[in-house]
């Protein structure tokens, strides 16, 4: 017997476009709450994320899975959250990325985005590919990838979009944004920066909080990888990248990019990768 529940269910559809599944894997790394807490338990008391479609973890395959998209689109109109991972290829009607079939015809992810995006309560563009185009949209952008926001704007769909960039994004940035929506509703304009990123996570430059900042101020620059000193002259993009990595650290606080001696590659910025590469060359203007 299925008991009537007082828990509020928040249906979530997770669509994968031109991406690498790295955003999903990063979210699986969420430490507290754990991914089990997020999917099974009430992530906030009385509120449960019902992840109806996610092709990497869902039980169903083929049409069994696609039916869930149809049903959610029709029956949960205006109440589901659409998470999009990956950029949206638009060349030649979007044939470069296809998810399932309708009536025997392959359906592109750009077409799925239009249909699911128009009925969603909100869209979370997760990861730099979805938020800004990322590597698939890098020059020469072979499949004419757009960001989620651009792809929705092109067809005049006004569903609110929240960008959570990062290659991959930190799990806390996603879970934190989600929890905030469950508790307080959609973010207010002042909660987001000019690129629609939550200021709570993307409010300061890496450079502002970098533990190697003192080296920079004293002009002590590392000359080779693996050594001490500021990594600026080895190509670090921390001075132009907004994210709280230096404070939050990655993988349950174990380490982070600059912590491991590697220059920041600017993966949270709209210009990633073209405007922040060559990765190992000093920026011409900070």
């Amino acid at each position, binding site marked *: 017997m299925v*008991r009537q*529940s007082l828990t509020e269910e928040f*249906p*979530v559809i997770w669509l*994968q476009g*031109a991406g*690498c*599944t*790295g955003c999903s*894997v*990063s979210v*699986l*790394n969420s430490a507290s709450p754990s*991914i*089990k807490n997020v999917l099974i*338990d009430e992530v906030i008391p009385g509120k*449960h994320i*019902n992840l*109806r*479609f*996610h*092709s*990497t*973890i*869902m*039980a169903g*395959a*083929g049409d*069994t*899975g696609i039916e*869930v998209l149809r049903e959610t689109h029709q029956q949960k109109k205006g109440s589901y959250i659409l998470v999009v991972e990956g950029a949206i290829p638009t060349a*030649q009607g*979007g*044939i*470069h*990325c*296809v*998810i*399932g*079939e309708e009536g025997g*015809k*392959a359906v592109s992810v750009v077409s799925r985005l239009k249909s699911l995006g128009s009925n969603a309560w909100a869209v979370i563009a997760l990861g730099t590919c979805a938020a800004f185009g990322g*590597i*698939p949209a890098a020059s*020469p952008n*072979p*499949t004419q990838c757009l960001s989620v926001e651009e792809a929705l704007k092109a067809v005049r769909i006004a569903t609110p979009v929240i960008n959570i960039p990062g290659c991959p994004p930190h799990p806390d940035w996603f879970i934190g944004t989600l929890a905030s929506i469950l508790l307080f509703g959609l973010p207010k304009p002042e909660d987001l920066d000019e690129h629609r990123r939550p200021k709570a996570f993307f409010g300061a430059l890496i450079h502002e909080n970098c533990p190697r900042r003192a080296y920079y101020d004293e002009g002590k620059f590392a000359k080779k990888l*693996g050594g001490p000193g500021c990594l600026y002259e080895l190509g670090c993009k921390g001075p132009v990248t907004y994210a709280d990595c230096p404070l939050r650290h990655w*993988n349950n606080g*174990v*380490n982070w990019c600059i912590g*491991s*001696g*590697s220059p920041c590659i600017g993966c949270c910025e709209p210009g990633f*990768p073209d405007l922040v*590469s*060559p*990765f*190992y*060359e000093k920026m011409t203007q900070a």
Partner: protein
Amino acid sequence: MGHIVIDPVTRIEGHLKIEAVVENEEVKETKSSGTLFRGFELILLGRDPRDAQRLTQRICGVCPTSHSIAAALNLDSAFGIADKIPDNGRIIRNLILGSAHIADHILHFYLLAALDYVDITKVAEYEGTNPPLNSIKRFIERGELGPFFPRYEGDYRLPAEVDQQIVAHYVEALTMRRKAHEMLSIFGGKMPHNMAIVPGGVTEVPTIDKIASFLWRLNELRDFIDNVYLPDVLTVAEVYSDYFEIGKGCGNLLSYGSYELDGKEADLAKRQRLFKQGTISTDLKPGKLDPDKISEEVKHSWYASSSTGRNPARGETTADTGKKGAYSWIKSLRYDGEVYEAGPLARLLVTYASGEPTVKGLVDSTLAKFRASPSALFSVLGRHAARALETKFIADSMPGWLLQLKPGEPVCISYTIPEEAQGMGLMEAARGALGHWMEIKESKIANYQVVTPTAWNGSPKDDKNQPGPIEQAITGTKIRDEENPFEIVRIVRSFDPCLGCAVHLVTPKGRSLGEFRVS
């Protein structure tokens, strides 16, 4: 005659479609087709060669570590420093890769494969005190069962208490694979997309606190592998033992070898590695690996026929979208003109045939449990068993490597980017043989080819009309219920395909959406 289309095949990495023609309950023909293209090769052209290492690992967020190492080996070889990587750099690369393989294999068995065998609804009957199981029971009672429903029905065979136990382990596996990534990031900086592996070595320096922290995280994972993961694979194998007979595949296996035991040999085909380089078939006769014998055939792929049969070092990718008889964007990767399967089974058996004592012990004792011969390993369950056994072999090898690290010694060396050079990087991703090839001109990337495990396993028919390994594994299989084709998805998932990896290079032109459907 039935026509089964599974699109998308879920619980794999990326976008895959499988079509099977069924007659008298038996699959007569199979076609596998990838449905995402990003054009990585074009994006890489003209860039700083070093950036290939950062960019290509982003081909795949499930196995980025493998691409980051294949790219680093490729660049090491192009820069002429393949035999000069400091031991600390070589060992830390091994430790990062080992952590990734442990995470990947745990993820594969529990998150990707187990739901084909384990019925999560049996937890509704659970009466015990295990907190995770009781929270899943409450979850089931709430009635919104995403992402565990809907699903195929009709062939869940485990007794309720075994189902419940493996569901509890599924929850534990979520934590364990996360912890393996945390272990990785001690030396890798972060995961997915580690930052520490670079051409010339690594950027993270070993210190005693990192070594100790890594060791005890590793020991916790080894405990899980020995006492939970391996026993669960054997439990499933006992109940679904017919899957030792299902999904045999092409019967030829190929391994590039992986985990560098020696940094002084520049030739990757000859270097001392934990997993050995070579080929092996059902007769268990080992063959030497010769990278020149690798070729890409395109008769049934949407590429110009003039480019067929080339070695990846001279690879070419010219789309021919109107080509008759073509049905895939994946090229047919072949070795010496024959079909070969890549993956954990390949590297385990190639290493077994080399006489490596630990692997021999692991394989022989497992076969003895099932009173089976090595030929039983060429199957759905054989692939799962090989994956679990090699997880143990890798994890048990890592403490020794950790103790070889020398704090204070260098982790990487300097180099100059040559004006003109060629490179090759061969290694083993979680799902099999992975190769990166490149050409540098005027100190920029002039050509970059990534040839992946799923380009072996998921390949279409070749120039001689021989179907690829996954196609061969499915064709001939009895399908009990066309509405719930468990057999097909179990076979496909046993290969752990990775489509983001397999179809990233191409730039198709001029196919309409309607024509895209293969029928």
